[in-house]
């Protein structure tokens, strides 16, 4: 019956139609749930597909291979371990003794044994130290020192990780942060000797960074580019060490000063301030700061090879990366040799020598190179600047 009944409106409602509609409704809900699940599944699958493509598509996989294995993280860490072994053996021979030789043939496994032992030692955090910064800073130090290895041009075509147009500036930005981290580490250790060591590290930076950057301006100018890859590519005909020998020497010395090895060892003078800003670090933190020092030395050697020694340019029958590695080993050898032949200078003498001698020499050589480019056209022809 339809129509107003007792003042209300009567809806048409058929119970049995409704009853017959329930399975549809249930089916609709089930469909909705299944669509939801399928949607999630496809979404997850989409992510996995995306990851797969990210890692295993040929271009991306090779990038990851380069970034992690060679010449990336694993390669750098293994080279770091080799560098420490090499340093210790070389120091030993210079000092008329043998260096480690018990563990592994020629002591090769000594570093692994040392690393395992040091990591297992108890870490003692002094009461006066600021705990979280104390734990954080050594890790930051190692990361900041290892990062610039991305920009080192191990090879021109393929075996390099990345190349920015201003990678030289970026590398120096990272390296300038290192003494600041040292200063902070000395401050958060809560010990007077660490504080003095931190101040000395900041002083070292003040003394040595400027000659270093001026020395690196020479190759950048000659190559006309601020990227390490560009500078290395500009040396295909002549190495910059031939044109700028004094700059090579000043860069090497300023690099030693910046790292804080002998003879510019004052921030970690172990006969004066126990171990400088590294005094209070024990166990894993000591391992990190110890390896960070050698990683920095390696980094400077690699930068020297890229800036002055031609990078991958060398013997034509060897791949570029092998050329680079050979030159890198030779540069690192000179690094260690120079640093073991002199004794520690006092902090004010470091500043005195760097500002009085290194800086003018670096500037003079850059100016001389500029004049040579302008007035010696044959030289300019060799470089990408002067002509076709």
């Amino acid at each position, binding site marked *: 019956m339809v129509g107003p009944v007792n003042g209300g409106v009567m809806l048409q409602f058929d119970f049995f139609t409704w009853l017959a509609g329930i399975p549809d409704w249930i089916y609709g809900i089930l469909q909705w749930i299944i669509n939801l699940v399928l949607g999630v599944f496809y979404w997850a699958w989409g992510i996995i597909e995306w990851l797969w493509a990210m890692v295993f598509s040929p271009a991306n996989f090779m990038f990851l291979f380069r970034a992690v294995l060679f010449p990336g993280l694993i390669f750098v860490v293994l080279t770091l371990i080799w560098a420490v072994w090499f340093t210790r053996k070389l120091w030993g021979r210079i000092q*008329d003794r043998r260096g480690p030789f018990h563990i592994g043939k020629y002591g090769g496994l000594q570093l692994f044994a040392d690393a395992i032992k040091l990591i297992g030692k108890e870490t003692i955090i002094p009461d006066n130290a600021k705990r979280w910064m104390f734990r954080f800073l050594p890790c930051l130090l190692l990361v900041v020192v290892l990062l610039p290895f991305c920009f080192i041009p191990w090879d021109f075509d393929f075996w390099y990780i990345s190349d920015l147009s201003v990678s030289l500036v970026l590398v120096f930005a990272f390296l300038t942060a290192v003494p600041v981290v040292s200063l902070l580490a000395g401050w958060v250790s809560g010990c007077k000797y660490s504080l003095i060591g931190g101040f000395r590290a900041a002083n070292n930076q003040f003394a040595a960074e400027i000659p270093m950057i001026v020395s690196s301006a020479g190759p950048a100018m000659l190559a006309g580019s601020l990227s390490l890859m560009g500078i290395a590519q500009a040396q295909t005909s002549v190495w910059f060490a031939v044109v700028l020998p004094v700059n090579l020497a000043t860069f090497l010395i300023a690099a030693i000063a910046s790292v804080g090895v002998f003879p510019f060892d004052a921030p970690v003078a172990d006969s004066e301030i126990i171990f400088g800003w590294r005094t209070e670090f024990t166990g894993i933190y000591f391992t990190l700061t110890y390896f960070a020092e050698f990683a920095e030395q390696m980094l400077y050697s690699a930068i020297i090879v890229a800036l002055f020694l031609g990078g991958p340019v060398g013997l034509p029958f060897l791949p570029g990366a092998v050329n680079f590695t050979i030159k890198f080993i030779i540069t690192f050898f000179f690094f260690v040799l120079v640093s073991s032949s002199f004794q520690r200078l*006092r902090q004010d*003498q470091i500043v005195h020598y760097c500002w009085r001698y290194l800086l003018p020499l670096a500037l003079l050589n850059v100016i001389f190179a500029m004049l040579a480019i302008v007035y010696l056209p044959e030289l300019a022809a060799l470089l990408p600047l002067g002509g076709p």
Partner: protein
Amino acid sequence: MSPNILDEAIDVWFGPQHVSAHGWATKLTLVGDYIVKCDPNAGYFHRSAEKVLEYRTFRQGSLVMERMCMLEAFLAEYPYVAAVEKIAELEVPDRAKVMRTIMMELSRLHSIQFWWGQFNAELGFFTMALWPWVDREYSLDAFEELTGSRHTVSFSTPGGTRFDFNEKVLKQINRAVKRFEDRLPKFRDMQMGSPTFRARTKGIGQYTAKQGLKWGLSGPPIKACGIPMDLRKDAPDSNLAYNLCDWEVPITENPDHPGESDALDRMEQRFKEAETSVEIIKQLLPQLPEGPIIDAKARAKVNRLPAGEAYGRVEGTRGITSLWLKTQDKAQSAYRAKIRGPCFASYYALKDLVPGAKFADFIVIFGSLDPYPGWWDR
């Protein structure tokens, strides 16, 4: 900045737990990088040797003395032996006199090589620290061949010596001396010619001879000022053989500051001392007479000594080393034995010498005075 600069002073304990401070602690008051006050603290190594000597027989006492400074063991044990010989009126055979002198000079050489290496290690020059230490092994080989021990030698005894030279010992001594002679010129050039070394030690820790004498310094710190003060010539001991050879007291005169010495002069002085020692050894070795090595009646006489007082002195590596001995009648051990070590004065001198220097120079000054805590703490 506060008007009173001492308000910003911080106190740093260059303390017993420090890489360079083996057995001593000094409280330094620093303003910025400069030391304004230095308060040397002794007593970390005190072994009450003087009281111990009152309970050791006269043959055992020299062993206590040599442990005061084992680096110059032959020189350290001699004052006690000399004092006992004076009271007991023993006659030392000539062979023993020459042997004692040779070994004392070799001991001086060894001590200088050790100090040289340690000083360089404190300066951070590890290459030059280990090269003299390799040569030191040759001297130690000679000590071991003679006495069986590298450092605690116990060679001199009242009345003579306990061990005799034989072919092997002479060969080792010759080897040690020859090796040092061959390598000294090269090392000396590398050390003194290094511009960083000169920069670190020139003008550091400078004092006049008169000031040094007032503080009680003797030996190389005074000889480096140009004053030939050497007990081997000033007060020659009849039981040693220094008069049998021809040698000059080594002094260093620096025309820049006559009558004063800085750390560089003291380094040069010790090279000269080492050369003089080598010369004395080379002159004495051919003159070694045959004969007994100890007074035949020594054993009987030294058991119980008559009452007496004696003062035995020797020119040690670092200065005047002496022992004042008083015995009572028929005593078996000393009644009072006073040990005077040369580094007692060196450590005291820091109080007036160091203020005004930079913090990094503290260890250079102290190292150049050749410190050894065994001598001031006993």
